[in-house]
Structures are given as C-alpha cells and as structure tokens.
C-alpha cells in the first residue's frame, strides 16, 4: 500500500512541472515565476523558519532525557565515556559537531543481531551513512558554489572551491564532482525508500516528494551545465536585481532555468513545513543537546507548580477535636 505514496509524489512533481511549463512557455507569466514566486518563497522560508524555531523554543523540556550510549560520569575510578555520554558543555558541543558534520549516529546501532553464544552484534548500515554524508556535503558545496551568483565581487574562496570541485574538468568538461555525487547519492536514497519494504512502510508521500524535488533541481542544474547552456550573465544580473529590490526579468533565459528556479522556490517555501526542518532541529533536540548530568544535578520540571502539601500534622491539627471525640489515636495531644 505504502508504495502509492511514491506514486503520489511523482505525480505531484510532474504536475508542478506541467504548471511551470504551461505558465512560462504557454502563458508567458514571467513576472509570476521570475519575481513574485521567488520573493514569496524567500519570505515564506525566513518567516516560517524563524516561527518554527521560536515555537519549539517556547515548549519546555519536561524531562532530562539525553541519549546515552556509554558510561556516565560517576565514581572517580570508573572510566566515563565522554563522547557518548557527555558531561560538560564542551562534550555536548563535540558530540553535536560530530553528529552534524559526520552523521555519527547513523553509523551506530542501525541493526542488532543476536549471535550464537549470547553475543549481541551491532550492525551499521554503512551505505545509508555514506549516502547521507555524500548527499549533504555535496549539497553544502553546491550551495556555496552558487553564491557566485549572489555575491559581487565573487569571493576568492568560492572560486577556489569551484576549482577544487572541478578538478576532474580535464576528464569531462565542467562536470563538477559534487554534481555527480549528489545525483548518485540522491538516487540511492530515493531507491532505498522504494525497494526496502520496511522503509517503504514508514515512508509518507512527503518523504518521496522532497527527494524528488531536489532530484528535479539537480537534474535541471546539470542539464543547464552540460547540455542546454544558460546565459549566466542574465541569471546573475537577475539575482542582483532581485537583491537590490529593482527586479528585472530574465526573459531570454532557457526554460530549464525556470524549472530549476521554480523547484528551488517550492523547496524553500515548503522547507519550514517539512521534515527538512531537521536542519535547525538537530540543534534543538533535547536528546542530543543535553549534558548527561542526571545523577550529579537535580533537574526540575519547568512546568511543575509548587504543590500545596497537606501534612499529617496539619490534618491532625484540623480535625483534632473531632478525632478526640471518636477516640482515634493522636500523635500529639
């Protein structure tokens, strides 16, 4: 049943593509697709992003629940696992950094197998880790590379990155390594969801939709590089005009550019509503950002009101007379 979800997403993406084709090619709504939608999408993205984070920030963390997979700091002669059970803020930062930069949690405890003589074997799903790592890092590098369209003068760091990414230019003209990697990684991550029944079972339409959308962005981007060239001067001039709030229209530019742009707009507008919010979320997840001090410090539930305690003594004081009358035993006379 769950397979329908992927079909829905494909249909949705194709439908969006058709909207754009009709809108730009057929009706010529350049203003809508070239100026209004991008502006709206950026506003959506920023406002939605900030709103979501603030919404999360206003929820209390009732329990002290750091994820722990090592020995907590306790007695001096017991060796604590600083990395997997961080006791200090520095330790938390280090663990978070490893999570964010190298996706360490993906490498751990993906599968558990019981081996013959009562031996647990933790298995890693190396491919998922590799795929995710390749995808996210390429994504970051590609984003940074794109900053050449937004910045004037172009910083030398970007040029350097570009040079490094295109180190195989000698082999295949202008195909960047990250372009290829992201395409492979994304295809793997998507196919994985379709092929494995367990993962298919837990996947929602949106889990297929976002990778497909990104795939659309990547494919249109690569096509623009390799097959159907786009006038980069007009593109950059358009970006600069948008940034200076005197928008112009990139009219002569290839249709592929509009597909690319439209999908990017959809993605960033959808971003605050989607699971993509794991980007800020990783910083705000209590299981990862708390120090493991559940033994050494007292954690107070923030929504605990002070409870009015009615002690036995007060009770006795209140009903002393009545109790005396019926002859109940009293602690104090």
């Amino acid at each position, binding site marked *: 049943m769950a397979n329908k979800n992927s079909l829905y997403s494909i249909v949705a993406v194709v439908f969006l593509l058709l909207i754009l084709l009709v809108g730009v090619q057929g009706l010529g709504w350049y203003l809508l697709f070239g100026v209004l939608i991008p502006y709206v999408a950026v506003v959506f993205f920023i406002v939605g992003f900030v709103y979501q984070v603030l919404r999360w920030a206003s929820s209390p963390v009732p329990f002290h629940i750091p994820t722990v997979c090592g020995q907590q700091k306790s007695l001096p002669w017991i060796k604590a696992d600083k990395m997997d059970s961080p006791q200090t803020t520095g330790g938390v930062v280090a663990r978070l950094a490893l999570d964010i930069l190298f996706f360490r949690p993906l490498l751990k405890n993906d599968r558990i197998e019981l081996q013959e003589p009562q031996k647990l074997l933790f*298995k890693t799903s190396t491919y998922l880790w590799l795929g995710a790592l390749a995808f996210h890092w390429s994504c970051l590098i590609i984003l940074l590379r794109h900053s050449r369209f937004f910045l004037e003068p172009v910083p030398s760091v970007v040029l350097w990155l570009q040079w490094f990414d295109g180190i195989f230019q000698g082999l295949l003209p202008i195909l960047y390594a990250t372009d290829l990697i992201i395409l492979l990684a994304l295809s793997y991550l998507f196919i994985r969801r379709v092929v494995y029944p367990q993962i298919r079972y837990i996947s929602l339409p949106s889990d297929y939709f976002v990778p497909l959308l990104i795939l659309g962005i990547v494919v249109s981007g690569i096509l623009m590089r390799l097959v159907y060239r786009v006038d980069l001067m007009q593109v950059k001039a358009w970006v600069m005009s948008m940034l200076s709030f005197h928008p112009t229209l990139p009219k002569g530019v290839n249709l592929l550019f509009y597909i690319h742009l439209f999908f990017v707009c959809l993605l960033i507008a959808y971003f605050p509503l989607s699971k993509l919010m794991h980007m800020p979320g990783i910083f705000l997840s209590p299981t990862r950002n708390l120090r493991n001090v559940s033994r050494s410090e007292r954690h107070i539930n923030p929504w605990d009101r002070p409870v009015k305690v009615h002690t036995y003594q007060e009770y006795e004081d209140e009903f002393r007379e009545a109790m005396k009358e019926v002859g109940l035993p009293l602690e104090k006379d």
Partner: protein
Amino acid sequence: MTDKREKILGEDTVLFEHIYKTGKGFYITVSILGGLVLLGLYAYITQYQEGLTVTGLSRQIFWGVYITNFVFFIGISHAGTFISAVLRVLKAEWRRPISRASELTTVFILMFGVGSVLIDLGRPDRMLYAIRYAHFRSPLLWDICSITTYLTVSSICLYLALIPDIALLRDLGEKREWFYRILSLGWTGTESQHRRLDKAITFMSILVIPVMITVHTVVSFVFAMTIQPLWHSAIFGPYFVVGAIFSGVASVIVVMAILRKAYHLENYIKPIHFNNIGIFLMAMTLLWFYFTFAEYITIVYGNEPIHMDIFWSKISGKFAPLFWLHFVLCFIIPLPILAIKKYRTIRGTVIASISIILGMWLERFVIIVPTLTRQRLPVEQAIYIPTWVEWSIFIGCISLFMLLYVLFTKIFPIVPVWEIREGREKAVSQVGERIRSYLPDDKG
C-alpha cells in the same frame, strides 16, 4: 576488560602492542617524517609555480631523478607480491609472519611510483588527458593500465588477508571499534568463511604474479621502445623484472629488520627468515649480474659507434664513478655476504640489502641519464646535477611512505595474526602429511 583481551589475544599480545601502546618514539618519528613530508610538499609547490626550471633537468637531459624514482619505486613494489604470492602458492610455511609487511610495502610504494611520473609532468593539471585522449600506441599508456591493475590487485590481496585480523580487533571492542566493524565485512571466522577467504587469496595470489611481471616489463618498455642507444634493447623487459625483484626483496629484508627491532617481534621474525630470504637474494644477485653482463657484452661485440660512446662514458667517462659504485653496491658487496653462511646473519643480510637498494637506485640512474647526454647527435655537452627541489621531493616521497607505514601499524597488526595461528593450529600437521605424500608409498 583485560580478561577479554587476554582471551582474544592469547599468546600473541606483542603483535598488538604497537596498536595500543603509543610511546614517545612514535611521536618523534611521526613529527620528523611529517616535517620531511612538508619539505617535499614545499618543494613541489615551488616547482608547480615556477615550472620544471627549478630542477636540474635541461634541454638535453630532460629525465632525471623523478623518472629514476619512478622505475626504482615500482621496482621495490615487486617484492611484496613476490614474497607473499609466490611463497603462498609454493606453500612455503615460513612466509607467514612477513607476508603482510611485504604486501604493504608493495601497495604504498606503488603509489609513489605513480606519483613520481605525475611530479615529472610539465602540466600536471592536464594529467587526466592521458585517459580522456588515451593513445594506445604509447608505451606510457601501457604503463598506466598495467600499474593501475597491479595497484588494484595488490590492494585487494592486502585487504583480503587483513579481514580476519580486523575482525579480531573488532571483537576486542576497544578503540575505533566502529571502524573495524565496517571494515571486517561481517567476518565471524566460520569454517565456510575461512574456506572462501582461502580460495580468494589463492586466486588473487596467482593472478598477481603475471600482473607483476607485466608491470615492470612495461616500465622497461618505456625506454626499450625508443630508438635511443642503450635503451633500445630486447632484454630490457626481463632485465628490469629481475632488477625489480632484486631491489624489492632487499627492501623487504630492511623493512623486516626495522619492524623486528621497533615492535619487538624477535619471536616472530626470526634469523631463519633472514637466512631464507638471504639465500634467495643471493640467487637474485647472480641473476642480476648475468643480465647486466649479457646486456653489456652484446653492446661491446656489436661495436656500434653510437652505443659505444655511451658505453665508454659509463665505463671510463664521466659516469664511471656512478657506474662502478653501482656495480660494487649491487654485486661485489652483497655477494660474499650472502654466499657465506657465517655472514648470512640478520646484520649481514641487512647490510647487503641496504647496499643493494642504494646500488639499484644508481643502476636506474645510470641506465636513464647517460643515454640522454649523448642522444644520436651529441650536440651539446650536458651535465645534470639534481637541485634541492628534486632531492626534497625524493626525501618527501620516502618520508611519506614511511609515515604511511607507521600510521598503518598504528591501526592494524603488521604480522598477520590469523596466519600465524593457522600455522600453529593446522599447518604443522598438514606439512607432515604433505611430506609423507612426497615419499614412496608403503606397499604393505
């Protein structure tokens, strides 16, 4: 914890010591080697920016230290496979403790062989053009194909033989457990896994031998296929292969001696190993001499003026010191040491090996450079003195090789533990049986 360690390591604790104990010596070695690597890197950056003008190379002698290194490094790389693959195929039991050290030498030094050619390029930024516009008539492209195959095959060999040991480290569950877990490919040491591993290793060992021979043959073809005097020789293929195995085996002896000393492996790498390889090295010395003799006697009898010019420049001309030094180092010094049993000790074989390694580098040099000084038209009198850039890059390459070696031993055991155990548990009885099978059957 200690119990677990003891249970897994058993009597072979010393083989894991270099992984778990990091002494002062390690840091000193790494920082010295790291410094030298940085020096080499600085030299290369200088060369990249200024062009090859910073080297001592010239219009006339346009190949020098880098190409010598290319041939030399690739020659060294032949040892590993030779020791481990050939001895494995021949079922020589004494190979067990040294097979990994030699395979590792192969894999690492091979990278520097390839690297030396890339360093020598005028436009390294275009090096992938050799693949994009591949021209299969060029012997350089044969090199590319053959060396890539060799690197792949010998890396697989090394890795296959590592798997059981990686699993061992994983089961210890200490440092870097996740890393070992990934690399161990789910090895649990069952009977069927052992059978499959054995099959795979045997297959790769047999495969690697012809590949190894093609590699150095093709390296020699780079020279032999030209029509330059003293390069254009039909025996260059086998001559280079013999020279490669010669220098490679010598380098394995040196590596063994260093490992034995540094990691206290006296109980595993024993004088008998040095003795056995020493005998083999002696045979190679004689074989090398035979080829050198055959090469030069042919030239002398042919008496072609162009060839004789270069021949005399080696025998009594400006290359005479280098030529005779290489002959002394490759033949005069090692032969008596290796031939006389009294001297075939650890120290003796190591001295002979160092002499051979130095001599073989010089041999490559006196093969390459003199021919270039007098190409067919002796137009200019050219001299070649390598500059600091070339020496620094040379030193940087060797330092990086050693650094990689040191770092490898920080992560994996350098003696194949499982092979030692297999030897202890199974091979002893198997060998007895095998010997019985050689003997005439009892007709009872």
